[in-house]
């Protein structure tokens, strides 16, 4: 399965609401696999949404388990059409994003969420997520809604250049 190129802002696919994935198909299964392969190919990449590989569909891959901050995790997940049912306990953290590599921003996100989604084989499931895993899901879900972490920067001083000038 191919590792795809990660799309960078200002590619318009990142600012569009992605289409519902709907019933499982072979194409969706392949998309899920591409997301996993592309995520695995990046150093320290813990999540990837389909728009980040140029596909405007509501699909994402994530895996919080390698991260030292992870407490409880479901491991590798491929999710379609995720919906947040509940969100609690907001927390502020500085985020970076593969699709906006030169900037970071402080973003407030819930620490505990309840998510309904279709899993890799199209089964509808409800996931309880917390901590870093919840943050990844919410960041990737924003990509499906055409939102970048810049849209959530909490104040003007929250924008930081990550570029190293030479």
């Amino acid at each position, binding site marked *: 399965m191919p590792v795809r190129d990660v799309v960078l802002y200002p590619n318009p696919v990142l600012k569009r609401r992605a289409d519902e994935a709907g019933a499982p198909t072979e194409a969706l299964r392949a998309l899920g696999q591409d997301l996993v392969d592309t995520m695995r190919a990046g150093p320290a*990449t813990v999540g990837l949404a389909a728009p980040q590989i140029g596909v405007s569909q509501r699909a994402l891959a994530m895996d919080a388990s390698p991260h030292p901050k992870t407490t409880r995790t479901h491991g590798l997940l491929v999710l379609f059409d995720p919906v947040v049912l509940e969100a609690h306990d907001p927390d502020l953290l500085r*985020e970076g*994003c593969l699709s906006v590599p030169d900037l*970071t921003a402080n973003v407030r996100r819930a620490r505990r969420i309840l998510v309904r989604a279709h899993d890799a084989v199209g089964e509808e499931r409800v996931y309880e997520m917390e901590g870093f895993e919840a943050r990844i899901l919410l960041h990737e879900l924003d990509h499906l809604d055409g939102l970048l972490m810049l849209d959530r920067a909490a104040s003007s001083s929250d924008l*930081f250049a990550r570029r190293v000038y*030479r």
Partner: protein
Amino acid sequence: MTHYAVTAIGVDRPGIVAALTEALLEVDGNLEDVASTILRGHFSMMLVVSVPDGSSADELERALGQAAWPLRVAITVRDVEAGEVVRLRATHYLVVYGSDRPGIVARLSRLLSEREANINDLSCRLVGSEESPVYAMIAEVAVPETLDAEALGEEIQAIADELSVDVTLRPIEIESL
């Protein structure tokens, strides 16, 4: 393109940014990085701008100065080579606060400089009452990889103890998602 660093400072009021950026636009200039805040009621802004080659610093200062004059905003313009500086990524927040007294920033920044830790970003505020002024500072610091941050933290703490201020040095955690 030629790059200039511009500073603007004046009593805060609506319209300063609009006046300056419109004047810049009229001389075909482009805003690059901008930092701005209000310091004790004074609007202060620093900009790195690019203008077409052949535009002098004096011309730019005149153009911006004319726009700024009715607003009582003072402008300076100087040459810079944009992007020539190697900037280390900030690795730590240094937060210091306590009863105001001379030398807090000077002592700590001197220590950082001696350890070749770079201050990338700095905000300080004098708050509290006249009888009991409180100084608060937050800096983003690039601690070199070769330096033991914990040892640096202990040195900072020693100065903070002498000055009777509270201090925290903590890593900047960026989650790449």
